[in-house]
């Protein structure tokens, strides 16, 4: 059962409030990142090397920007749900409750240094018509994110597309 277009479209283009990440950029989180990625870039991990570059010290991997604004597992943030959360709730109520990321584009502007406070402003950019995908019926939803530091400099602009689908419908089809 597809969701009314007007309902979906009502979520498009509303900027969320500016939400600050829980942790400031820090060497520990950078190390946890480089450990998993096996990234040996000395800009991220070697203060001696980084000191003599234009950054004058270590920087966080630019790809790590969104990590600083991820919702913690606990406690749940005390704020009104943003347009992304509200939209996903409406879709889940209609049976489109499973999510898979399909595309991400990041453009980097200002490097992140330990101590920086990253915040994000996000909005729903686009919602496709209902598509019949290999995983089941669903919608491609694209979000736009802007990541900003404590000096109001834009660190990164990102778009992020997810497929929100009904996995139960696909499984029922398979079982027939």
């Amino acid at each position: 059962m597809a969701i009314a277009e007007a309902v979906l479209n009502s979520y498009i283009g509303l900027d969320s409030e500016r939400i600050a990440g829980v942790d400031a950029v820090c060497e520990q989180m950078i190390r946890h990142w480089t450990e998993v990625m096996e990234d040996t870039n000395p800009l991220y991990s070697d203060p001696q090397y980084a000191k003599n570059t234009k950054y004058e010290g270590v920087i966080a991997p630019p790809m790590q920007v969104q990590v600083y604004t991820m919702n913690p597992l606990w406690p749940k943030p005390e704020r009104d749900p943003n347009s992304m959360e509200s939209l996903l709730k409406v879709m889940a109520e209609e049976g489109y409750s499973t999510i898979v990321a399909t595309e991400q584009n990041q453009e980097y502007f200002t490097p992140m240094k330990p101590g920086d406070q990253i915040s994000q402003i996000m909005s729903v950019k686009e919602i496709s018509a209902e598509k019949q995908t290999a995983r089941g019926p669903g919608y491609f939803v694209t979000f736009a994110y802007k990541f900003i530091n404590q000096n109001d400099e834009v660190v990164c602009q990102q778009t992020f597309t997810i497929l929100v689908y009904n996995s139960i419908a696909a499984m029922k089809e398979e079982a027939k």
Partner: protein
Amino acid sequence: MIETKPVVLNWNDVKVGDELPVHKRQITAALVSGGAISATRDYSDVHHDYHAARRAGADDIFMNILTTNGLIGKYITDWTGPAGELKSIQLRLAVPNYPGDILELTGKVSKKFEENDDHLVEIEYLGKNKQGNHAKGKVIISLPIRG
């Protein structure tokens, strides 16, 4: 710390069509779940809970997009050295990365250009595993010039 001199790739030495070295990465459950929880703070259950992943129609827990993005960035700066400055990463996901897969990354210089005093190259990369294309897209990075 072992003192090693980092690689420096100069813009002058790069040509359109140049191929990046092939990089293979073994995908383990630790990389998938650690990539989600430890490296990227993503607690979505499909990245650490086998049963949740099965319910979502996947064969096993699968890598989150932020970890894939991190591996792409690393792949590119491994080639340029730390003087390469990432400007953008475009990433399209197709088949998932499951534990037991091997991700094979390849890339090719698709453009070389100058913009706002930056000397830039664009790389078209592809990440494949045994099921097909996991990730593909383009990265733009600025490089130092000689002189």
